[in-house]
């Protein structure tokens, strides 16, 4: 069954540490997205990609990098994690932006 999976599902990191969140999709979609979800802010787009080798800045890219090494995989990288990056992160894939399929989320806590 086509799906979007994320790892890890939960992560505790220390301030200043490096965090990598991984996403894999078997939908064969070209587009992939990283969002964060915070109470009071809804979902906000961090980075997205049109295909392997491409990454684009979303609405809140500061403090985050992204990597799309293949059609299936899209990673979000926090080089120097800060407590303000404590959030739930969702990955999604889609053929176009208007119909997206989401992973289960990663809960990140930065202490």
């Amino acid at each position, binding site marked *: 069954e086509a799906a979007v999976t994320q790892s890890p599902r939960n992560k505790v990191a220390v301030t200043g540490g490096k965090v990598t969140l991984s996403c894999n999709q078997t939908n064969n979609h070209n587009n992939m*997205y990283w969002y964060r979800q915070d109470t009071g802010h809804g979902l906000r*787009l961090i980075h*997205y990609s*049109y295909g392997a080798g491409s990454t684009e800045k979303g609405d809140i890219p500061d403090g985050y990098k992204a990597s799309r090494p293949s059609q299936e995989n899209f990673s979000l990288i926090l080089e120097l994690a800060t407590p303000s990056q404590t959030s739930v992160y969702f990955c999604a894939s889609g053929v*176009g*932006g*208007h119909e997206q399929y*989401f*992973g289960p*989320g990663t809960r990140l806590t930065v202490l």
Partner: protein
Amino acid sequence: TQTVSQSDAHVTVFEGDSVELRCNYSYGGSIYLSWYIQHHGRGLQFLLKYYSGNPVVQGVNGFEAEFSKSDSSFHLRKASVHWSDSAVYFCAVSPSSSFSKLVFGQGTSLPVVP
């Protein structure tokens, strides 16, 4: 600037009731409108979308939504809710180009009382 407004942060209904969740938008140009559902602790799931044609679109599990250009609205409805419909519902807008992004509303929480 594209914005999406969900005026009700929280709507409580009883099982078997009908429900309407409101979504209003502002945009320039052609757009897609869509609804997503998020059960507690889960990722968002696509429900339905509208671009053109019949303004009433059907989704999964008995949900439907109606587009109104004059009201700039895309309200979601269900005739008879089940306790399993308890979730947060998000309205979203995106331009009709392929390389597009979604702009989400703030979400409406819908607890269904058994």
